[in-house]
């Protein structure tokens, strides 16, 4: 069994995080800048390089056409799905999009599909984890909104592959949160998880029983979240600016972005204060200012947060439960920091919701718990098992455009269904099957997943072939199909035309195209880091040579140090980071006495005449890097 760590990743609309299980506790891994959150922003810098997270933020305002955010909204969707989205979000689609093609977004003069942009974010998280562990990370559990459909899940998995990550499991975000909360819970309880994030809303009802987390019902809206609140405020500000100041800045992407940032700050302020002032500097030296009270804010956002009520009621109905049968309600997602949202949840479940864990981090922590369950070697999670459900019914199109449901929503996954098909014409060798996802009666109102062409059916009279088609939804919520002709026993050939999403071949090409091949990338960074350490070591050694104590070493010791130094300088030219580190360690050992002597003289100088016997200096040099320690002086 490999000893490689499996990380848990929350790939969010607004922020993304990576976490792992440190012993019996999940912990978020900070980035190089010390921050736990990586903003889900991707930009192309002046040199045409991809920048992700905090460093990418400034491009949103400086060169808005070189940056993109909230790309999660576009995952697994087609052009016709996102017309409304385009009015509210500054997504710039490629000009040459063919109908039915996977969306491509312009970033400067380049174009990328949503899975590729998500892959940039995943790759950044992967790097953060590798930096933290000083070891490669290639396996992950990634969270998705519970209400994500097949195409959106597939797109997320593709993003992982493009980023060089083997996505072992997609976990639903509210379920992940329940895992993080339920780590110590052993008793039986019914829990409702209300997850209102930056762009998505989920509600999940779970039954906890002796470590089993059984989802009973889930519902949601994959296009409802904090972004919608921001858009309301942005619209008002734009309207004000046009009315009061007479300037139309709607076409100015940079200004719109400045306004967006200002309203987000105001929104956050209103969670703890009763009023705040929106202040925006406009081009031409003009200034926009507006006071917003919490009461006004709450009235404004009421329609947005009311949209969560329907899904909550439906989930409760599907679970066959009334609010008083819910033992605990849990809040997840940044938007649940808004007091009015908390109040609504309290009304819905008639109890104070839990929010002990940071709502921004809890999903990533839960993903780390699930990663640990999959790795299967921890005492903390060995009793835990997650039984999730499919959020949407799976159906096939019958004659007349009616959908025949074959796997109902809220079925525990993995789930399967077997259907039999036959031919309508003598000698017919192909049968087409249209698979859909959704709750509506007619195919045109459901989400098309794929069209399957069953080929190679032996020619027989009409109605005689019996083709058995097995539909299976795996533990990730992703559908698989296999078919067999029963009379001939022949495995039928299936040609899949996914309605949305990348083909395997496209994903493969994107992996090859990606400018840093994962494995190679890791090695190169390790080499660079090892060289940097070696430079520091050699610099310290130079200082040591200049120190009077150098003369106190025996000539043999000095020759030995010289040899080790030569060896290190030689391996530094090579690309073997392990050899460089070995040489550093050897030099480190070889200069131990030099470091001690330097230490003593430094201490001696500091103590001004006190003898070593009486001075309280502990037990000699304790630092792992003796020469560096001497630099204290």
């Amino acid at each position, binding site marked *: 069994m490999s000893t490689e760590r499996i990380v848990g990743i929350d790939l969010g609309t607004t922020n993304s995080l990576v976490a792992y299980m440190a012993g019996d506790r999940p912990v978020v891994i900070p980035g190089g800048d010390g921050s736990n959150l990586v903003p889900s922003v991707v930009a192309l810098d002046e040199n045409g390089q991809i920048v992700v997270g905090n460093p990418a933020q400034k491009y949103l305002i400086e060169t808005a056409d070189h940056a993109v955010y909230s790309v999660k909204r576009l995952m697994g969707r087609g052009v016709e799905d996102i017309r409304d989205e385009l009015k509210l979000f500054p997504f710039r689609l490629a000009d040459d999009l063919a109908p039915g093609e996977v969306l491509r977004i312009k970033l400067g003069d380049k174009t990328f599909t949503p899975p590729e942009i998500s892959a940039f974010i995943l790759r950044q998280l992967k790097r953060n984890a590798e930096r933290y562990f000083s070891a490669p990370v290639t396996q992950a559990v990634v969270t998705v909104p519970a209400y994500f459909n097949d195409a959106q899940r597939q797109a997320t998995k593709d993003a992982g592959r493009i980023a060089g990550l083997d996505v072992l499991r997609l976990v639903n975000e509210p379920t992940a949160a329940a895992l993080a909360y339920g780590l110590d819970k052993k008793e039986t309880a019914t829990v409702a998880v209300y997850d209102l994030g930056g762009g998505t809303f989920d509600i999940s009802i779970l039954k906890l029983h002796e470590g*089993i987390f059984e989802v009973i019902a889930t519902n949601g809206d994959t296009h409802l979240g904090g972004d919608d609140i921001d858009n309301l405020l942005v619209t008002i500000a734009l309207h004000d600016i046009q009315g009061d100041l007479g300037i139309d800045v709607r076409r100015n992407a940079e200004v719109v972005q400045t306004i967006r940032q200002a309203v987000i700050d105001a929104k956050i302020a209103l969670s703890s204060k009763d009023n705040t002032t929106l202040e925006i500097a406009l081009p031409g030296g003009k200034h926009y200012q507006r006071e917003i009270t919490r009461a006004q804010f709450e009235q404004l956002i009421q329609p947005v947060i009311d949209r969560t009520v329907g899904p909550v009621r439906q989930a409760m109905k599907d679970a066959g439960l009334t609010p008083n049968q819910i033992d605990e309600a849990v809040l997840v997602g940044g938007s649940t920091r808004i007091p009015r949202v908390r109040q609504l949840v309290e009304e819905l479940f008639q109890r104070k919701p839990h929010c002990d864990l940071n709502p921004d981090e809890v999903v990533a922590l839960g993903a780390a718990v699930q990663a640990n369950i*999959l790795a*299967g070697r921890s005492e903390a999670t060995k009793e835990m*098992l997650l039984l999730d459900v499919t959020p949407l019914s799976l159906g096939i199109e019958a004659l*007349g455009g009616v959908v025949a449901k074959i796997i109902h929503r809220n*079925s525990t996954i993995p789930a399967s269904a077997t259907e039999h098909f036959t031919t309508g014409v003598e000698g017919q060798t192909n049968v087409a099957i249209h698979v859909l996802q959704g709750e509506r009666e007619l195919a045109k109102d459901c989400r098309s997943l794929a069209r399957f062409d069953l080929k190679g059916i032996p020619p027989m009279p009409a109605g005689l072939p019996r083709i058995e088609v097995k539909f*299976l*939804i*795996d*533990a990730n919520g992703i559908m698989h199909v296999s078919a067999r002709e029963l009379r001939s026993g022949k495995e039928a050939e299936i040609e899949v035309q996914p309605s949305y999403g990348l083909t395997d071949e496209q994903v493969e090409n994107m992996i090859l195209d990606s400018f840093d091949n994962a494995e190679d990338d890791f090695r190169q960074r390790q080499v660079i880091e090892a060289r940097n350490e070696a430079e520091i070591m050699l610099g310290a050694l130079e200082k040591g040579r200049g120190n009077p104590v150098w003369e106190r070493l025996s000539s043999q010791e000095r020759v030995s140090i010289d040899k080790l130094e030569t060896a290190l300088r030689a391996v530094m030219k090579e690309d073997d980071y392990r050899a460089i580190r070995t040489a550093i360690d050897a030099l480190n050992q070889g200069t131990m006495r030099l470091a001690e002597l330097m230490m003593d003289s430094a201490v001696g100088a500091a103590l001004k005449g006190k003898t070593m016997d009486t001075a309280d200096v502990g037990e000699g040099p304790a630092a792992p890097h003796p020469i560096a320690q001497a630099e204290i002086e």
Partner: protein
Amino acid sequence: MPQTNHDYSAGILIAGPSKPTKVGCWSCGAMRAAHFCQQCGKVQPPGPVDYFAFFGLPYKLNLDTATLEREFYLLSRHLHPDINASSSSQEQQWSLEQSSQLNDAYRTLKDPISRTEYLLRLQGMHLEEQSTAATEEARRTGKAKKQVVPPDLLEQVFELNMQLEEARMNKKMGEPDRSLELELQDTRKHLQVKYDSMMDELHTAWNAWDALVEQSAQGGNILEEDRAAVRAKMLDILNRRNYVRNLLRDIEEVLE
């Protein structure tokens, strides 16, 4: 190692309760051995079993759902893909198939109606909504499948359909008719009582069926026509129940 190829005695499905069930015992867990090894815990290749056989259950309709749930949890702890995430790809595939079978079986058996429908389907009987005739009709007309009106409801349904039509019109025009709404609420109450009473009818039929299964397990000789009569009774109850459910749904829609 336990046996991996069970003789599930396909005869059970065809001959119904005239033969005793040959699959393992519920309480001693012998059936579990078909799914995972009792010694090393490894997932076994899935076999072609029906849902009753999957749980090692006799083909009875009275079922203790609390015990079923316990067994479901226990089997989940061995069969779920998360438990077998670091096994070989062959074992992972078995785990995926076994746990989807487990989930499908549990979902079907825990609900009294779907359990009854499933047993009838095993016996080659289909509800009207799912019958070949209904499918052919739907295919020919391109419309959703329609059901035959139960004779005792014929008159009431005729009137109800007219009322529903009128109420839909009123709703569209935005002119609600209070007295019509009250009448519909009355009908709904009446139908709901009928609907609930069908569950009692069904329980009586279950008991009759289970008695036959028990008798056959004791080695008794059961006449095919006795079994056919109970099956027909259950099918009739379910068909009528579905019909009333659809009526209730229609009223619900209008009154919303």
